């Protein structure tokens, strides 16, 4: 039951992009086509899951026993940066087709605050365990994917809209994101 609640909360109620404001840069940056947004979502799912697993273990078995909790931010960002590089190198060798699909997005992910954000938030889960943290990361990346893909589909239609000059570009995108976020607000009572 715990897990169902985590999933629903992460995807709909506390959507990582639309209500927690993590990962806004890729949300606004790579959402002009549905195909690229699918690729980005895949890359985030991949990296976020691995990164949370590693940072959770690092925190639990290295930082806390050694009393180095204050090094959390530094060590996590280093782990994530190193992981992204490693995933890129391994994917290139092991699965060139997957690398073709996700490759361009991987370097962008280091500065995606959703990855670091989820890694830190996962530490604060109630009755936390490794399994729960990993499940939390997967749920959040699904939430990211949902928001990004829906937003990209809307933006594809917006290209044809006849807008006043001052609204074009950033303002209209933010406005659409606001309306989407409003729609997600409707899920509040679910959990």
């Amino acid at each position, binding site marked *: 039951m715990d897990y169902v609640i985590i999933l629903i909360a992460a995807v709909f109620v506390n959507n990582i992009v639309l209500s927690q404001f993590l990962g806004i840069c890729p949300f606004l940056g790579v959402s002009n086509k549905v195909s690229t947004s699918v690729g980005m979502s895949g890359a985030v799912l991949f990296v976020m899951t691995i990164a949370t697993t590693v940072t959770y273990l690092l925190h639990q078995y290295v930082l806390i026993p050694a009393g180095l909790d204050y090094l959390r931010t530094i060590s996590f960002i280093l782990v994530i940066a190193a992981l992204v590089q490693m995933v890129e190198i391994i994917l290139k060798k092991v699965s060139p087709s997957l690398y073709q699909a996700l490759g361009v997005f991987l370097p962008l992910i280091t500065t995606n605050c959703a990855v670091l954000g989820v890694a830190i938030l996962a530490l604060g889960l109630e009755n936390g365990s490794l399994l729960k943290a990993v499940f939390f990361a997967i749920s959040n990346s699904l939430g990211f994917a949902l928001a990004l893909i829906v937003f990209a589909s809307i933006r594809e239609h917006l290209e044809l809209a006849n807008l006043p000059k001052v609204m074009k570009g950033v303002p209209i995108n933010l406005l659409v994101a606001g*309306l989407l976020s409003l729609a997600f607000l409707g899920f509040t009572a679910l959990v």
Partner: protein
Amino acid sequence: MAEPLNQTQNFLKGIIKENPTFVMLLGMCPTLGVTSSAYNGLGMGVATAFVLLMSNVAVSLVKNVIPAKVRIPAFIIIIASFVTVVEMILEAFVPFLYEQLGIFIPLIVVNCIILGRAEAFASKNNLLSSAIDALGMGVGFTLALTVLGSVREILGSGSLFGLKFVSDNANTFILFILPPGAFIALAYLSVIFNKLTNKTL
């Protein structure tokens, strides 16, 4: 632009011409995430400006020592160290703000403004120019966050910096302190900013 850089212009560009929020669209996560009140916006702006200043200065000092290949990881470590310092200072001296900003304090480390300025400016310029560049960008970012926070607080809670100017049971536009209000308020602010600076997108 190495030697005869006009320092006044260098400072001002961060506020208007290259405003990190309205023009360059960097650091959007904290911009939207913490601006539910003017005080939070100001606090986040100052914290970010501090990290920006310290890391720009540090990067500018060590730029000749760091090999080009590992410069990005090195910059990230420098930035993360200063973020940790800020995290500790806030927790010790302004615990209220520390709680309000929450997850967004450690996330200053992935704020693209800071890495962006380190890479694009501080790694190529001298100490004084880098410090002034950081100050300009920091002030520009703080201003943007404070304005956005003020607009949202005035509309959403009928107050400014915590001072209420409507009666307690008045109906305020609560939408603006909820997440959707962040997007909508920023959308209209950037329309106004574009109109004022005559920038055609």
